[in-house]
């Protein structure tokens, strides 16, 4: 016997959660784009999409965020802090790759400094994931040793039922249990036949890649130039990656008042490593592409024992020139064999 949540009870669940003070957020398709947004009613949720275009990181690490305002006067500088809104949220219908990515960024944002903005939101959010029964040609979670039903980063995992009437509920954390205790009466106990998970073939050998990347002789390999020749240096892959986390500070204002903002930045941008002196240590696109791959699959795992990638495939899916990490790691796998 397992716990089942039926689709037709979803609206009532939202009502209960709203009454308990939670905002409910989920995948929404609006204005030609699919992203995670706050919903009032269950029918606003687009739970059939394979993966929203934008990622879960929008909810924890907004694209642009004011940090504090400042006012400069003769004697002093007054500042006033902006803090995250402080709202309890339930994210309903995240994909396992997106949730895994949040768990990947936790050690990063808590490494040498506890990032208040990230953790305040993380601590106030319950993530309910839905396992994938469909994938497209760009998905590659399995290549990252994750799966369409990974539990990493998730508080509750829902497995779609074979007859599509709802989901089987798997409670994973206390936070998840607490949130689902609010909808106790709306769940059923019954035997469940879950639908088959998506088949996501493994596309490259991550261990072989790591070894190749760690070998110092390969740092200057001509491979980097060849593989990245068509990269145009936009920020699409980095901005649509759920684990990418680089940011820049920008003061917006005039002589005496302004607001300091934290904005997404991209290592693909030509000026990313431009020094004030005018020297740019990563002055070619191949150097920047190499950094991206090295960071995700060599340096980050070296520090945190996790790859900075959850295999969602958005980098390749959205890249205007059909790049993405899959091709690079496939070529490295081939090179090493």
């Amino acid at each position: 016997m397992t716990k089942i949540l039926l689709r037709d009870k979803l609206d009532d669940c939202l009502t209960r959660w709203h009454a308990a003070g939670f905002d409910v957020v989920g995948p929404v398709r609006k204005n030609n784009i699919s992203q995670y947004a706050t919903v009032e009613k269950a029918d606003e949720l687009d739970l059939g999409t394979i993966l929203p275009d934008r990622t879960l990181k929008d909810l924890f690490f907004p694209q642009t965020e004011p940090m504090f305002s400042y006012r400069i006067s003769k004697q002093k500088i007054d500042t006033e802090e902006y803090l995250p809104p402080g709202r309890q949220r339930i994210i309903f219908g995240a994909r396992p790759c997106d949730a895994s990515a949040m768990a990947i960024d936790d050690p990063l944002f808590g490494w040498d400094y506890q990032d208040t903005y990230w953790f305040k939101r993380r601590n106030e959010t319950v993530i309910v994931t839905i396992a994938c029964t469909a994938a497209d040609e760009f998905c590659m979670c399995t290549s990252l040793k994750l799966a369409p039903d990974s539990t990493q980063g998730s508080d509750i995992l829902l497995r779609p039922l074979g007859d599509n009437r709802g989901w089987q509920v798997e409670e994973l954390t206390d936070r998840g249990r607490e949130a689902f205790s609010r909808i106790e009466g709306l769940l059923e106990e019954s035997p469940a036949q879950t639908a088959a998970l998506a088949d996501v073939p493994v596309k490259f050998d991550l261990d072989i890649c790591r070894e190749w990347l760690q070998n110092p002789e390969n740092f200057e390999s001509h491979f980097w130039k060849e593989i990245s020749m068509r990269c145009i240096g936009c920020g699409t892959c980095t901005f649509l990656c759920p684990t990418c986390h680089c940011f820049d500070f920008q003061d917006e204002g005039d002589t005496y008042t302004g607001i300091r903002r934290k904005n997404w930045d991209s290592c693909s941008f030509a000026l990313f490593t431009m020094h004030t002196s005018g020297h740019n240590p990563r002055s070619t696109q191949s150097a920047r592409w190499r950094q991206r791959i090295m960071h995700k699959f060599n340096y980050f795992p070296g520090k945190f024992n996790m790859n900075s990638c959850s295999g969602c495939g958005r980098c390749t899916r959205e890249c205007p020139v059909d790049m993405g990490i899959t091709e690079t790691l496939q070529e490295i796998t081939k090179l090493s064999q």
Partner: protein
Amino acid sequence: MSIQEQYRKKAAELLSSGEVKLVIGYGAGSTPERRRALFARTADDAALLHVDASCDANLSGYLVTEGLLSDKKKIGIFLRPEGIRSVNILAAESQLDPDQIVILGFTEENGTISALQGTHASDFAALMTALKENRTPSEKEQALVEKIEAMTPQERFAFWQAEFAKCIKCYACRQVCPMCYCKRCIVDNNQPQWVHTSSHTLGNFEWNLVRAFHLSGRCVECGGCDRACPVNIPLRLINRRMANEVLDAFDHFSGMDQNQEPVLASFKKDDPETFIL
């Protein structure tokens, strides 16, 4: 022999004879529908080239990659008609020497590809004139342009605000555009900071307006920006509107030849002025 086979042979010949050091064309992408830029340096590489209806990217942007043409050697490149216009503009703006560019031109009509005759940008003058005379948007595009023009200013503003609110400032539109070749874009300057870099709606609105303005009279309507945008903002509409404006007001159609004066760097004493008080 199909166009693809003809052109593969041609590219292989250009490479093995040493006439060009590189051929930029299209290769198979990560799915059957996708094509990606292919940089062929040998006859073997040339065998991987594709020339078909899925080859829609404007590859001319790669010609202004830093240092690519500085050895004065020639480069072959597969271009659709708008790509040839791009080469003319880049030449007119002194960004490249058209004598170094060997054009492998092709055009598409309803899925069928045909080869264009000519190899130097100046060989296509008649084609450029024909393009100017036969400017027609797709039905879908025309419908949306008309819908926007029928709105009140407030409605139009709300429409674009909703679109630009989606913008993530990834600059894919800029990077993919052959006409956006500035080493330091205006948005990258902070002394002064004319346009907000943050991606709140105001910053996005300013960015998209600035880019559209800087492209006025230069955009060749290849659709690259529209296709590149990961959040599906209908950028081609704005650029098309600007292209219409420079044509109506100044009879300017960008990319006619390598000596054409940029529309905003030139003037006529009798330019129209209907709105000046």
